[in-house]
């Protein structure tokens, strides 16, 4: 009898544990983000503040570091699809073209303040595919260039910052004048720097027919200019941790992300500021950017009422996302960036005037993620002379083309299948 009771209790416990995993409040908005670390904590706080307003549809923030893999998994299974997701701008074209996203039309009509005028244009338009708005932006984040104020004063080059743009020619002025172990610029996030430079030289990663264009004269100019800095001994050596070298006070400029402000600020001895990523010209400059965008995956279980609840949450975020600036991101809501309190954040530099806003460039090419992969794989080798320029450009072009061809082949197969089916029906 005793044994039976124990067995029954054990079974009941196991069943309870298993069923607990299947639960979920249907009035809760399941909100998935890839925001790990401090970013996740700031978003948790925003969500918590919203839930404290006692909304009809509270939000459950789920952080998943492998967001896109998780998305593919739930889309394949057809269950557990989140109500709201925060995705990167470069994912929008392929998600939209594969009909994975739901347009924001209903939400935009219910929340009139969620409109283009109330957000940074570059962030807002990143969510428009073929005239349809699929996303509402949270932020822009991307390349930034930090400078070591003390080191710039030591070398007498603070005037480089007068026009907010440091040119490559200015950097080359220090050739042969640096103390041993010191450098003008590091190679952190070099692929992003190169993609910003590509805009400066008038190039692009997408050709007129949607084909990838990496092996171009403009990209060659980009690499030539970066190599020029490296060959002058001004860039941190290949393989060295340039980010760390900047923090230890041995590099004038660090080209990393807007969010790095938090980490740099923790280095007590580092007296630093922020400016635009260097350019070959004082008149043209771009900071390669991305954006976190709210989006809704296609999900038949999402009710119109819940969609309305999502709209209310997005409107709350639009009004209150100054908290998000703490994470080092350029907040997309104009209401926030026009708030005087926002000026205390270093990244407000990038929205201080129209010229700065226009420098934030988000690539919206459908196959842009492949381009970044290729750049990440080869650009450091090419710039540091470990790989020839021609060879590197050809490899990058082939890398992207092969991946794009795979996707195109799949679309062609799908089209053939539809055609065959139509013929059979006829």
């Amino acid at each position: 009898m005793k044994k039976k009771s124990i067995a029954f209790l054990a079974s009941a416990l196991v069943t309870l544990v298993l069923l607990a995993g299947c639960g979920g409040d249907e009035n809760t908005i399941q909100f998935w983000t890839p925001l790990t670390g401090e970013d996740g904590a700031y978003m948790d706080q925003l969500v918590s503040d919203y839930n404290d307003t006692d909304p009809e549809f509270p939000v459950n923030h789920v952080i998943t570091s492998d967001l896109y893999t998780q998305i593919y998994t739930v889309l394949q299974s057809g269950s557990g699809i989140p109500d709201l997701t925060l995705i990167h701008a470069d994912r929008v074209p392929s998600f939209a073209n594969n009909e994975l996203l739901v347009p924001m039309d209903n939400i935009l009509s219910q929340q009139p303040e969620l409109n283009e005028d109330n957000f940074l244009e570059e962030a807002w338009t990143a969510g428009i595919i073929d005239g349809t708005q699929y996303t509402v932006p949270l932020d822009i984040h991307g390349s930034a260039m930090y400078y070591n104020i003390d080191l710039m004063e030591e070398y007498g080059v603070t005037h480089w910052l007068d026009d907010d743009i440091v040119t490559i020619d200015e950097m080359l002025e220090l050739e042969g004048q640096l103390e041993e172990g010191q450098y003008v610029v590091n190679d952190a996030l070099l692929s992003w720097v190169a993609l910003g430079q590509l805009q400066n030289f008038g190039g692009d990663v997408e050709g007129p027919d949607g084909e990838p264009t990496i092996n171009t004269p403009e990209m060659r100019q980009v690499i030539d200019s970066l190599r020029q800095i490296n060959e002058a001994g001004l860039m941190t050596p290949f393989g060295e941790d340039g980010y760390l070298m900047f923090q230890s006070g041995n590099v004038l400029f660090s080209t990393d992300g807007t969010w790095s402000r938090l980490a740099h600020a923790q280095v007590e001895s580092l007296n630093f500021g922020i400016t635009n990523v260097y350019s070959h010209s004082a008149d043209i400059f771009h900071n390669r950017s991305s954006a976190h965008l709210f989006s809704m995956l296609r999900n038949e279980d999402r009710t119109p009422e819940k969609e309305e609840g999502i709209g209310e949450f997005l409107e709350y975020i639009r009004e209150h996302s100054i908290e998000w600036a703490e994470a080092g991101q350029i907040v997309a809501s104009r209401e926030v960036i026009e708030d005087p309190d926002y000026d205390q954040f270093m990244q407000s530099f990038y929205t201080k005037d129209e010229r700065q806003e226009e420098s934030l460039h988000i690539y919206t090419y459908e196959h842009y993620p492949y381009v970044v992969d290729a750049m990440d794989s080869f650009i450091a080798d090419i710039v540091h002379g470990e790989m020839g320029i021609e060879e590197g450009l050809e490899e990058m072009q082939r890398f992207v083309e092969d991946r794009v061809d795979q996707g195109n082949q799949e679309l062609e197969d799908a089209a053939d299948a539809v055609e065959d089916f139509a013929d059979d029906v006829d």
Partner: protein
Amino acid sequence: MNKKKYSQWFFVGPHIILFIAFILIPSIYGIYASFTNWNLMTAPNFVGLENYRTILFNQDSSFHREFFNGMKNTLIFVGVSVPLMVVIPLLIATSIEHKKVKYKNFFQSIVYIPGLISISAAALIWSLIFNSQLGVMNNLFGFDTVWTATQPYAWMTIFIMTVWGGIGGNMIIYRASISSVSQDLYESAEIDGAGAIRKFISITLPSIKFPLIYTVVMTTAGSFNVFGQPLMMTGGGPRESTSVLMMYIRDLAFGSGQSIAGMASAMAVLLGMVLLVISACQYYIMNRNSA
């Protein structure tokens, strides 16, 4: 009577269910996926042997280059790390089991504990040790090397980290096996005038043949699946010289762009076939020699 008839299923049932759910079905689907063009978002399109043809024979394709570069680097890793992961723990286990050695468990713990640390944490530790600015190697020993960006040092950092974290498990197995070898054999050999090396070769090794086969096969299988160490230590560089096949497979299937899961699955199947053949050969050769 019925209870006895079905009682075995109570014990093997859970394992079979888990095996079917998490190993068998995914493996079969993975093999099917290797014959398709699939982006994980839409239904897979059957393309027959096209992915295999591209990977193996299309020399103009980046997938061909990546596969052979990844396979070459994986084989380098396996070829160097497996012997180290077998020989070093075997020597340590033999040394610890020597009757004059005291504090056996203490030494065993020192060797075993690194294996309990996650690869990510271990990689952070070793990255700092080999960091050219802050690291012990350069600052204490006066080297001036960027370890993770220069060959052959990049490989060395990976091997050191792998051996440091990987020998503990094998060492425990060898020690348990050696301790069960009858002392009478060693005493008889000593009477016959056998030295330490002769005893090791003629008594210890033949006595632990099954644990040896097991560890060699399992270590080889684990080494073929190497991923974390090169990813965290060198990022696959310099010039992709430490990019192993699993890194390419992962990037293709779950990289930042639209997934190329069909091609990734084909590479994974080819890797699995190589692993299967090598493991079978190892098992056959070692089993035959020890029979």
